[in-house]
């Protein structure tokens, strides 16, 4: 007894992946229990199993000692499980009170809005979740919206709270405020599951931590009795890296030179803060980091898809900071974007059309505004042969191809332009082992031909085996640039979480400004 929630031997498989492999977990009354793990470690799957969004293949969930079986989130809510999703389930056009009471409103036919607001006011006082019940949710900051989500859970009499990556969208100050709330709730006796991949946050707020890796629970430890180093090792794992045979490097001149680049998101929050590095011809420069730390915003900025708000981007000796994406393409930059189905291809177009997407305006594909289908087909068939795209049918829609072959189509299109710099984001995401090997070989081949390659990947193994140098980014700040030949996984893992060996974190000037603000 004493365990409020117990998960025993919980298993969930999806086609081709064992997402949760005999998971064991206990949550005690009055503790904050962190689930720590890299992306893809199976944290989300576990939460969805507990919340009734998925059904387990085997294993058991015990709530207050009794086995429970949830068919939908409704059952889980009814049993007293409250969940705050990473992406909020709120209705911006309605007020805070409307959002909180929706589905269980006070009143019979008439909706007693005043009564709803009063109830919400009482709840927010009880749990110290200050927010104006009459405010429109769309007008609130992200931090306040999160409070509305927590209030929703308590309005439905939640006895236990699951927070799924709750700090992902918060500013540093909002994160601090959230931690105060979490500690207060814990002291009130509410057990909390805190899902995170951020070491420092786990250390700041959790009592116990369960580390997950590759679908398994690796260890459950008391946070007070463990070190960051230990947690990082457990999280990343010490499995032997399968090194890929690389030829000796023939380093050329600097091709890409970015200085103090700043990128803001739509809400004007800084995502990339003063990053500088250079990429040479003939090298693969890896940009490592935990998802959401600014790496994708940075490559989008280099490709010209988002504007930089500060700093400069130079390519091949020219300032390209303010060029359009098309103009950058003309200077010899190619881009393999993160989401191949959304950004990389037009799925409803056939391979011919997809392969000339970048060059359709030019001869021989276009003459005086008329497309030459004949030239395009010939070009496509040639690429299909060279890149071994299967099935070798130029008239097939991109949607009909496997993930690996879709990636080959994008690589073929980008490489065929003979670029000097290739930016590659998540090139092997979701591919099977054979396809991954093909992509890796292709990238190394390009490197040996003297191309510069900027690689962004969330796969640490891939990063370490392909890259010559690795820059590690955390919270938008470049922590360090390390030599991929000599660095250890543990060191990169620590850098990715913002900690350095001497225990200090590298803080940007922006952080300092925020601290100084009243």
């Amino acid at each position, binding site marked *: 007894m004493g365990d409020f929630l117990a998960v025993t031997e919980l298993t969930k498989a999806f086609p081709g992946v064992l997402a949760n492999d005999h998971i064991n977990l206990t949550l005690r009354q009055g503790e904050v229990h962190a689930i720590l793990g890299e992306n893809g470690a199976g944290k989300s799957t576990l939460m969805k199993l507990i919340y009734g969004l998925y059904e387990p293949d085997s294993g058991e969930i015990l709530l207050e000692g009794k086995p429970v079986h949830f068919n939908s989130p409704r059952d889980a809510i009814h049993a007293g499980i409250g969940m705050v999703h990473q992406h909020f*389930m709120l*209705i911006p056009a309605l007020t805070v009170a409307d959002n909180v009471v929706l589905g269980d409103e006070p009143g019979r036919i008439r909706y007693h809005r005043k009564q709803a607001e009063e109830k919400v006011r009482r709840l927010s006082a009880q749990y110290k979740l200050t927010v104006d019940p009459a405010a429109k949710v769309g007008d609130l900051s992200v931090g306040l919206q999160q409070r509305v989500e927590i209030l929703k859970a308590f309005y439905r009499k939640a006895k236990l709270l699951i927070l799924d990556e709750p700090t992902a969208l918060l500013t540093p100050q909002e994160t601090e405020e959230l931690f105060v709330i979490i500690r207060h709730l814990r002291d009130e006796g509410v057990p909390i599951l805190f899902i995170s991949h951020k070491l420092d946050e786990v250390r700041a707020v959790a009592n116990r931590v369960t580390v997950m890796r590759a679908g398994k629970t690796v260890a459950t430890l008391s946070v007070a009795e463990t070190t960051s180093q230990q947690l990082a090792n457990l999280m990343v794992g010490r499995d032997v890296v399968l090194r890929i045979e690389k030829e000796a490097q023939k380093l050329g001149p600097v091709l890409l030179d970015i200085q103090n680049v700043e990128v803001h998101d739509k809400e004007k929050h800084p995502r990339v803060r003063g990053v500088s590095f250079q990429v040479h011809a003939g090298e693969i420069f890896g940009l490592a980091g935990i998802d959401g730390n600014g790496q994708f915003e940075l490559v989008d900025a280099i490709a010209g898809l988002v504007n930089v708000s500060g700093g400069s981007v130079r390519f091949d000796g020219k300032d390209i900071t303010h060029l359009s994406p098309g103009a950058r393409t003309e200077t010899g930059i190619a881009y393999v974007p993160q989401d191949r189905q959304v950004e990389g291809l037009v799925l409803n177009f056939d391979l011919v059309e997809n392969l000339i997407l970048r060059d359709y305006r030019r001869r021989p594909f276009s003459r005086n505004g008329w497309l030459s289908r004949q030239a395009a087909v010939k070009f496509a068939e040639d690429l299909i042969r060279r890149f071994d795209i299967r099935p070798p049918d130029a008239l097939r829609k991109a949607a009909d191809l496997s993930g690996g072959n879709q990636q080959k189509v994008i690589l073929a299109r980008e490489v065929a332009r003979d670029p000097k710099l290739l930016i590659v984001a998540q090139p092997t995401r979701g591919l099977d082992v054979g396809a991954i090997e093909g992509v890796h070989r292709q990238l190394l081949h390009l490197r040996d031909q003297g191309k510069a390659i900027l690689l962004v990947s969330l796969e640490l193994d891939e990063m370490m085996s392909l890259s010559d140098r690795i820059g590690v980014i955390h919270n938008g700040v470049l922590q360090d640039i390390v030599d991929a030949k000599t660095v250890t996984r543990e060191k990169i893992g620590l850098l990715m979480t913002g900690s350095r060996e001497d225990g200090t974190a590298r803080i940007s000037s922006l952080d300092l400004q925020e601290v100084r603000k009243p």
Partner: protein
Amino acid sequence: MSVLLNPQLWAGTLSLATPLALPAIGGTFSERTGVVNIAMEGIMLIGAFFAVSFSYWTGSPWLGLLAAMTAGALIAWVFAWAAIRLASNQVVLGMAVNIFAAGITAFLLNTIFGYNGTPPSTASLATITIPAIKSVPILGWFFYQQSVLVYLMLVLVVVSHWFLFHTRLGLRMRAVGENPLAADTLGLNVWRLRYTGVIIGGVLSALGGAYLSIGILNSFDVNMTNGRGYIALAAMIFGKWTPFGSFGAALLFGFASSLSNSLQGNAIPTDLIAMLPYVLTVLALTGIIGRSVAPAADGIPYKLDR
């Protein structure tokens, strides 16, 4: 200036606003739950036809009104089934309903009533002049000899507002039109709420049609709605998807039509005045006058993966 002092201008404004306000409020119900409804034109035609037919067959315009509402609910139900259950494209469906309605009403008119159309003996709805209001300046002009449906419409404006913004069901319907996933996880029945919205919309649109056939006249004519369903759509958007807004926009558009009637033979081309509703709607949509924002999930089918 003398035009504005003409009582007929103001009576005409309210009268012409009625067949716009009813479907506009109907559309509001549908779109607030997240189903884009451009089928008002077609549902109005169906309503107009069945109102006249049943008024003629039963001798009671009230039973005609009931028949119009039933027919409107039925066709809206079919539309809702395809739009919600089958997750079909709502704009294409709406156009299909409009084309179908134009065809079927023309066919039925010919088949049932023959070459001469609906008989002139058909009863129409009563008109009322409230004595207390009659002598009030301006207000009296508005309400001079209006059909009972005009008064019903005014009641419906208020009731609809109360329903959408002050009842639990109204809150739920609006929630489903904004974020069906969030509503679903809270235990709301997304599909049923959307059906409710679309069917209420159908009933109100049919009432708008019935006003044309047994309110102002006592006959049905092929394509007699003449695009009013689309102007109602514009009124709904111009009115920011609210009952009061829709009514206000309908009044404005009704005034434009009434004015162009009164100015016939004058120097100002009436076609230009008739354009006014559309110009105003485009301005509202582009944000030049009081930005109009649709419900967030308007037009997006919600699929259950259970």
